């Protein structure tokens, strides 16, 4: 019974069907299924599948985003149940995301946020045009494990270095790890500014984030 339901759950994520994923999450509660197992054995399977498909060029951005949204919707239904049980879904890590100061591009960063959330990270997305002190302030406030910074312009990518230098000055690294991304960001740049991780795309960013929090195998 639950096997069949797990399959439907995974499929609802693959289809990006939030209505169905919510309905299935509610059904699992009625059936007294354990919410954590429901997430892990059902919905997460779908997210992982679509992520792999995207990486292989078989799935496309709208599918990836819709899957992420359907995942978020299902988890939102199940989280109160977890709390009732006195449990919480194990958070992979807390992440602050932002596009750096002077830059208003955010499609890529938003995608990273969606994928990280879908993969079990708690994401606080500050939005665009965020100065270093606001990014660091929010990271301290929520006790973030990772700061993720995006920049689309060669003129604004230097801001990523400013944030890292500021963190180093305050002695906040390696407590807080830094991920960078964006169209002009290369491996050379990532090494030059001594960031902790970088990825070309949202699926890769999840892998990097997991490595940074020491959960690469999950």
């Amino acid at each position, binding site marked *: 019974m639950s096997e069949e339901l797990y399959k439907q759950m995974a499929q609802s994520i693959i289809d990006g069907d939030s209505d169905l994923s919510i309905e299935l999450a509610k059904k699992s509660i009625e059936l007294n299924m354990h919410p954590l197992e429901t997430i892990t054995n059902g919905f997460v399977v779908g997210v992982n599948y679509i992520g792999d498909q995207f990486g292989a060029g078989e799935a*496309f951005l709208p599918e990836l985003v819709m899957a992420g*949204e359907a995942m978020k919707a299902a988890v939102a239904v199940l989280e109160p149940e977890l709390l009732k049980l006195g449990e919480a879904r194990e958070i992979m890590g807390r992440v602050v995301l932002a596009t750096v100061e002077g830059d208003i591009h955010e499609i890529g960063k*938003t995608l990273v946020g969606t994928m990280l959330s879908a993969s079990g990270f708690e994401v606080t997305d500050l939005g665009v045009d965020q100065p270093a002190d606001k990014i660091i302030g929010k990271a301290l406030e929520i006790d973030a494990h990772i700061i993720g910074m995006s920049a689309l312009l060669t003129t604004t990518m230097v801001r990523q270095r400013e944030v890292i230098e500021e963190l180093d000055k305050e002695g906040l690294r390696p407590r807080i790890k830094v991920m960078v991304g964006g169209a002009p960001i290369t491996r050379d740049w990532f090494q030059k500014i001594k960031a902790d991780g970088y990825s*070309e795309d949202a699926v890769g960013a999840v892998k990097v984030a997991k490595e940074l929090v020491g959960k690469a195998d999950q």
Partner: protein
Amino acid sequence: MQPKLTLLSDEIIARILDEAYQLLMKPGIKVQNTEARELLAAAGAVIDTETHVAQIPASLVHKALETVPREFHLYDYDGNPAVHYGGDSVHFDPGSSGITILNPETLEHDTTETEHLIRLLKVAEQLPQYDAQSTAVICHDVPKEIQDSYRLYLVLLHSKKPIVTGAFTNKTVQEMIDMLAIFAGSKEAAREKPRAIFDVCPAPPLIWSNFGAGNLIALARAGVPAEIVSVPLSGAAAPVTMLGTVTQHTAECFAGIVIHQLAHAGSPIVWGGAAAIFDMRKGATPMGAVETAMLDCSYAQVAKTLGMPTHTYLGATDSKLVDAQAGLESGISAMVGALSGINMISGSGMLDFLACHSAEKLVMDAEGIAMAKRMIGGVKLHTDTLATGFYDDKINFKGGDFLKQKITMQLFREEQHLPSSVIDRDSTRAWKAAGSLDAFGRAKLRVKELLASYKRPELDTEKEIRLHNYILELSKKAGAHELPFLEDFQPA
């Protein structure tokens, strides 16, 4: 709404038709086939017994145009209609009868043999952009007498798609009709659901050769579709002006249709060609010239006025390599052909004035064809409102808002053509990581993938054996007791 390209006014088309009728009477059409002359004479044409020039009155053309089918289908192996000749339907197939193939490693133009035709068939079979296969190259490793039939044999064994083919003698066209009947089950079945169409060429200016006219008659009687491939060359074998060339093309097609319909009224025939300009510096016949595409667009417009199904030769290049010239000539001319609403556009994969074929070019041309087909798909109305319906309460003025909409997922594939890996849309980093390849390099990889993924279709074993025995007999008569080894087909 399918976007259309037209180059001629109604008034000019009327003048083309009028002068074409005049050409049929003066200077007339040279008909080098006895039976065709007899058919024409019996129907009222005046034949000069010495010069074999026939004066064909307009009334014969009018009568033929009354009986010729306005549309018909070609069918795949399973009997499904897969190609529609008629209206503004647009299909593409690889070019035919190449004599060399581009070796992707040495860049030499190698003489074509069995393995090369099979390579092209395997690639084209898996590309949905090609609605039909063609007998793409001549196999020089079998006796000349069986080369036409042998090409068709290889296509029948390796493909399920409809076939654009042709024969260089009257004898082989009969053999090929027999072969198609073996696969269809009977001659009646082959007529009922034709799998193949045969290109038949008049010789410019205004000549129907012995074998060309003979093939028209044989095909008409067998009920196997024929495709007139009139090849006027502006400035050499046709008037230098485009309108003069199109008028000569019209007269040649008229004469062909008359002979064909006199042999068997109601048999399917297509208004086609491989018109080209004549290059005055090199004495060449450039298939990639824009004027060549303009000639084809123009004669297709004439055909459509008469309600005839259409064919042309576009999507080819005169370059010797799969390079930038190949891309731009093939892409632009494929687009013109599609916008002209031409039912069958042959020529993809071909280099060097239709002499050389290339599997790598086939995969690259498939991308140009996909663009052309997307173009004629037009700008569609998918939603009740054009835009306002997209802005619901979830819109928060962020760039990614529309990525989250279900309708984006539902419609993006219809709105956007997703190209294969031949088209580079990677970031510079990803492109470098993949080897910094140019289009030809990526095409080579794609061909390797397609060759690896090809599986010969499952066909009726008994028919395969009959077909094999048929061609083996022909080969033995021609002095060769064994056929070349086929990797995917070894009859018991």
